């Protein structure tokens, strides 16, 4: 058997993991045994986003190792077991747990340690560093008993740590020795803009002074003495005064190290011993620098992996130190020659201390962009960084002026050359990105966008827009375009529409599950005829087809309308009796009404007969249409109420019931500003005022909640209704398929102001028409269930089996739970019946 070489990796941090991935990508994991010694108790995680732990990310969310990665590639990972010594003669590494591992190739990726200045008291209880998840856990725990915190170091990491302390509720101080914050990244002007913004957030910044001593009492931190003679009282101290490469292992075994630390490597990341490599923050690159950023570390990982795989490796000769960060909510970016050190270079500066914006570009005498600093507004970073080294197509001052000042320029990334690096974390060029066709593909094939994420916006601009904005493979139009086509053609047939306006290849075909319900909804919005007659029966989504909501086992739920959430005891009793007689599960919904679950298709007409007889009508829980108008109890009962919110909710619900729209519509009416009905989370929400009603629009609950915007104030009943009529019809006319009002309003050009112009000030002269459309809807409303029950033809679809109309579906079964029923899922999970495999 051929000798299987062993590669040992010491350190499983960000760069170490990237190195393992690079080995796997090159197939090396199949040809070599790979052993990883990891000092920390967990596999590699995203140190760059460490601080997001305080925003609710869990250590698991931060993991950088895809599930099953180690097992799939046969990599042996030893957690909590650091390397202690290296014997280069014998080619072995010994770990703390006593493992002695023989290597053919050794790779050191030990990263850095936080530098703690040798001041008295630095080891007191209450002193911390900021590097690992364990550090954060300890800080979080200690902060529970602390009121004040101080960070030593006003650099990138120091400000992150300060932000974290602030977020933990502490009064926070930052002490920086240099005369400005972030001295490495930004220049004086940028530092000043940053300082103002950060002080405005309530942090206390001490620049130009050092920490002399940590003051303690009984071994715990009580304060800090500064070199300017002042003291700061504080309960805890976080040191963030820079990092130092972890090169002790290398020193101990006699590898060459740099004068100021860092394991010396050549352009292929080899140390002074050709069997040993060093990558990431522990290495001193061939250009004599130690890089404290992740992107250069990743480049080194690729270089080392390619060299080990005996491929031609891209030499690592140095890297760009560009960064873009969001520190305490302030955008800060620097790139290229940010400090203007090149001979004869010139600056172009824009500075606005009121808003904390500072932008500087460094150019050479010929106008070639060399670098820059952006503070407070780093929007253009994604564009400017890749332009470094080229002459921008417009004058540099135009690149720093805020939009709206002078002639605004919007430079598209299209103007960049193919070699421009778009993702600096993974060193991906525009050319490589343009070879892909979607963001997921870019991420998969090039890794671009998977690091700090700051390049994603530009990547999206580079990717081809979908060929057209058409709704689906059948129509080259958006929903609102189709709406206009149907309206002007007065067409009422989907088939006609498909054959006349469909894409060439779709004409004469069946259409698809996307455009059919969309066209059905447009037809319903415009004509309000019974939705299940003739051809339209074939267009509706399953739920509309049976006027009920399908549940996971194929049974249906039933939601009678309960306008405004108000219901009489008699009606409650009917619901109870129906549920009892048909054995249905009942639940109060989140929409102030009652849902009855577990009906078979063939039971729906019988159940609805009972409900309709008792005065109920369809609640349209199945339709893209008005759902509920929730109400609070309002002035009638509530001591705070100023208007009759229940009556208004009922009026609105009855007015708009049955209205079909691009997506469902929800509403609520609150009787006073306390807002018990949560109207501001609704598509249209109404809040009572002493003088009438305030109308809010574009609210949303669900996964991406949005607070509604105030459209108009102190409206009378009639004004309110007229405005809602216009708003809803304008939405129905112009929104995309499945676009709720919140998303529609976000997208609407001109936003709320435009909407107000159209529906309040009638700028487009549309209001009469919108009102007429709504009046037609209101006049033509019929209860769908009553209409269905009155027509035997329409009832024919409510059978489980076309060849056995009386047979109940045997797969719809229930089991008891908490005194009611629930679907018996065991029936569904049975193995496919015999013969049910593909032919």
């Amino acid at each position: 058997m051929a000798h299987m070489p062993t590669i040992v990796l010491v350190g499983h941090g960000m760069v170490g993991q990237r190195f393992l991935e690079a080995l796997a990508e090159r197939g090396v994991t199949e040809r070599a045994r790979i052993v990883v010694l990891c000092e920390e108790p967990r596999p590699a995680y995203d140190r760059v986003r460490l601080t997001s732990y305080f925003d609710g990310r869990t250590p698991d969310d931060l993991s950088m190792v895809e599930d099953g990665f180690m097992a799939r590639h046969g990599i042996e990972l030893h957690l909590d077991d650091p390397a202690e010594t290296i014997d280069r003669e014998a080619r072995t590494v010994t770990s703390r747990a006593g493992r002695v591992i023989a290597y053919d190739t050794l790779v050191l990726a030990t990263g850095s340690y936080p530098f703690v200045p040798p001041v008295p008291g630095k080891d007191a209880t209450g002193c911390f560093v900021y590097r690992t998840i364990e550090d954060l856990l300890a800080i979080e725990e200690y902060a529970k008993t602390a009121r004040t915190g101080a960070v030593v170091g006003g650099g990138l990491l120091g400000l992150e740590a300060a932000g974290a302390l602030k977020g933990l509720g502490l009064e926070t101080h930052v002490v920086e020795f240099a005369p400005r914050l972030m001295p490495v990244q930004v220049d004086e002007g940028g530092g000043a803009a940053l300082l103002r913004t950060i002080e405005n957030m309530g942090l206390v910044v001490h620049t130009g002074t050092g920490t002399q001593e940590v003051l303690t009492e009984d071994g715990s931190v009580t304060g800090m003495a500064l070199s300017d003679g002042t003291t700061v009282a504080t309960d805890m101290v976080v040191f963030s005064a820079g990092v130092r490469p972890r090169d002790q292992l290398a020193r101990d075994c006699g590898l060459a190290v740099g004068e100021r630390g860092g394991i010396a490597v050549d352009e292929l990341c080899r140390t002074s011993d050709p069997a040993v490599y060093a990558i990431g923050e522990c290495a001193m690159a061939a250009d004599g620098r130690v890089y404290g950023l992740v992107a250069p570390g990743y480049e080194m990982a690729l270089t080392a992996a390619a060299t080990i795989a005996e491929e031609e490796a891209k030499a690592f000769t140095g890297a760009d130190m560009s960064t873009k960060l969001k520190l305490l909510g302030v955008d800060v970016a620097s790139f290229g020659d940010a400090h203007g050190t090149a001979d004869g270079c010139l600056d172009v500066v824009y500075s606005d201390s009121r808003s904390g914006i500072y932008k500087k570009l460094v150019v050479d005498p010929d106008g070639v962009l060399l670098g820059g600093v952006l503070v407070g507004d780093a929007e253009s970073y994604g564009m400017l960084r890749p332009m470094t080294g080229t002459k921008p197509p417009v004058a540099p001052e135009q690149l720093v002026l805020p939009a709206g000042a002078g002639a605004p320029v919007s430079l598209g990334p299209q103007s960049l050359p193919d070699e421009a690096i778009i993702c600096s974390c993974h060193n991906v060029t525009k050319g490589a990105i343009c070879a892909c066709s979607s963001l997921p593909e870019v991420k998969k094939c090039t890794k671009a966008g998977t690091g700090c994420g700051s390049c994603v916006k530009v990547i999206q601009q580079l990717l081809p827009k979908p060929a057209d904005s058409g709704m689906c493979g059948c129509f080259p139009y958006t929903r609102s375009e189709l709406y206009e086509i149907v309206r002007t053609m007065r067409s009422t047939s989907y088939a006609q529409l498909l054959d006349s306006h469909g894409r060439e290849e779709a004409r004469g075909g069946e259409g698809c599950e996307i455009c059919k319900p969309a066209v059905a909804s447009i037809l319903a919005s415009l004509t309000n005829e019974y939705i299940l007659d003739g051809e339209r029966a074939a267009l509706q989504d399953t739920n509309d087809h049976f006027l009920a909501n399908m549940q996971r086992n194929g049974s249906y739920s039933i939601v009678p309308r309960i306008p405004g959430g108000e219901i009489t005891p008699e009606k409650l009793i009917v619901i109870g009796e129906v549920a009892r007689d048909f054995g249905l599960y009942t639940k109060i919904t989140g929409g102030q009404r009652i849902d009855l679950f577990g009906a078979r298709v063939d039971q729906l007409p019988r159940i609805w007969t009972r409900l309709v007889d008792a005065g109920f009508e369809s609640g349209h829980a199945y339709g893209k249409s008005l759902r509920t108008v929730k109400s609070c109890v309002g002035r009638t009962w509530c001591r705070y109420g100023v208007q009759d919110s229940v009556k208004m909710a009922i009026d609105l619900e009855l007015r708009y019931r049955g209205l079909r729209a691009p997506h469902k519509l929800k509403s609520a009416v609150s009787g006073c500003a306390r807002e018990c009905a949560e109207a501001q989370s609704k598509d249209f929400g109404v809040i009572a005022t002493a003088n009438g009603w305030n109308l809010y629009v574009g609210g949303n609950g669900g996964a991406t909640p949005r607070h509604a915007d105030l459209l108009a104030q102190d409206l009378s009943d009639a004004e309110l209704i007229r405005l809602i009529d216009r708003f809803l019809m304008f939405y129905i006319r112009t929104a995309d398929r499945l676009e709720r009002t919140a998303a529609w309003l976000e997208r609407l050009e001109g936003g709320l102001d435009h909407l107000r112009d159209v529906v309040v000030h009638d700028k487009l002269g549309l209001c009469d028409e919108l009102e007429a459309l709504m009046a037609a809807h209101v006049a033509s409303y019929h209860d769908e269930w009553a209409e269905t029950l009155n027509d035997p033809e329409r009832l024919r679809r409510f059978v489980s089996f076309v060849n056995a109309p009386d047979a109940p579906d045997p797969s719809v079964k229930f089991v008891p739970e908490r005194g009611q029923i629930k679907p018996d899922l065991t029936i569904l999970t049975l193995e496919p019946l015999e013969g049910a495999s593909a032919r």
Partner: protein
Amino acid sequence: MMLELSYDDEWLPICDDSVLTPGRGMAALLPDGRQVALFRDRAGRSYAIDNRDPFTGAQVLSRGLIGSAGGRPFVASPLLKQRFDLETGRCLDDEDVAVAVHEVRTRELAAVS
């Protein structure tokens, strides 16, 4: 025209094909308890596949919307929307999944005048 399904080497009459709305399906029960989803397209062609949605186990495929992609007819499951080719039973969204296809024909009934 009588719609018939191949069952146990015989043709099993199911229903008059006019009962099916073009572009929509209905379920049929086989003597052995299995369920079949029957569909008719705009052109009047009939299709039959298993009614059981392999992703959820529910007997619901007959209640999905049908469409065509690249000239081939499919049904989209009403539960989680996966599409199945009506001629081959193959799932268009997961190549490892398929449902059984049943042979179907329509036959002129002897005219009763």
